């Protein structure tokens, strides 16, 4: 009975989903504010900063991830409906899509294979184990899809989720600079590149640049999810990494 009222309140709040749901939103809003304050510099990526803030809070308060996720799952759940909603910006771009079917198809096929093979190749060369390699393979695909693929092929789904988010952040931070360096100005090419490489986080970044770039990025993210889900099992099998 030595607990202070403050500690009692903490025990009560920490057990309800409300606390960590609110914390997720507050940290994201702070990160977003910082991002705007930095005039949209991709180095101040809001996802990366919100994640860092939250991990700091969880470590200081000695809160396990499972407790955090009890609250954060409500935000996590919206990934599904948001993915479905990508149909809207896609439909808005339908005319350009038809005209660009061939270049988009080529970019998707080459991009999806490059994403998986470059990750597997580099990590294998630097001594990663099989579970890490399989978890890395779908890193350019949107999180819910990548986790499903990873689980089916013998990876670690929650590790894949982290690698996916990190890939998204790397793509969002460096994507526009790489595209500028390559002197690419067409929104269609820029969007497809962002979507293939860094899925939803790249798409979020693309929407900040222009709605057309966002729509193409959303399209690429959706199609590359299909393509990776279809190709990766045979690719890993061929590389001798598939389980069983």
């Amino acid at each position: 009975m030595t607990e202070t009222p403050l500690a009692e309140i903490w025990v009560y709040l920490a057990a309800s989903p409300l606390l960590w749901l609110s914390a997720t939103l507050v940290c994201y809003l702070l990160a977003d504010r910082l991002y705007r304050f930095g005039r949209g510099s991709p180095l101040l990526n809001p996802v990366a900063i919100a994640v860092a803030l939250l991990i700091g809070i969880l470590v200081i308060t000695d809160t396990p991830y499972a407790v955090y996720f009890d609250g954060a799952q409500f935000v996590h759940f919206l990934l599904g409906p948001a993915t479905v909603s990508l149909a809207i910006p896609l439909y808005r771009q339908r005319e350009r899509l038809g005209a660009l079917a061939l270049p988009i198809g080529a970019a998707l096929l080459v991009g999806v294979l490059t994403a998986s093979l470059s990750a597997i190749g580099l990590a294998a060369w630097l001594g990663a184990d099989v579970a890490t390699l399989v978890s890395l393979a779908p890193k350019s695909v949107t999180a819910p899809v990548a986790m499903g693929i990873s689980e089916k092929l013998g990876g670690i789904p929650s590790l894949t989720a982290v690698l996916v988010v990190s890939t998204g952040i790397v793509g969002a931070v460096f994507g526009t600079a790489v595209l500028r360096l390559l002197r690419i100005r067409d929104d269609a090419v820029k969007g497809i590149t962002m979507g293939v490489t860094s899925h939803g986080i790249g798409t979020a970044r693309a929407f900040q640049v222009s709605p057309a770039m966002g729509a193409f990025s959303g399209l690429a993210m959706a199609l590359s999810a299909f393509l990776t889900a279809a190709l990766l099992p045979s690719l890993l099998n061929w590389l001798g990494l598939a389980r069983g």
Partner: protein
Amino acid sequence: MLQALTLILICQLVGETVVLLTGLPIPGPVLGMLVLLGWLFLRGGIPENVGRTADALLAHFSLLFVPAGVGVMLHWERIQGQWRAIAAALLAGTLITLAVTALTMAGAQRLLAARKGRVRGEADD
């Protein structure tokens, strides 16, 4: 808003159900997106409330990745043990993918434009 949200959730539900029934290797929401896209094409346009709801969901798309990202704390040990391999795959792998994808699409577009130009040129002769 409520109707639009219901429509979006039902598309996802249809997607999830079809994936469960057929064992397709793709996730339910991605299939749900195609269902919604099909519905838009059948309808021939985007109802105003559906457009608004989708835009609201997508306005803070980044936020939705935060809970999964915080999961990095579950994997400190594995990441520490193999950090060089993981960092190389994440950084170099992603930069390579960006460049290769962009150059492939830009190249394919240029090839296509050149061929069209040639066909047009021959027709002019």
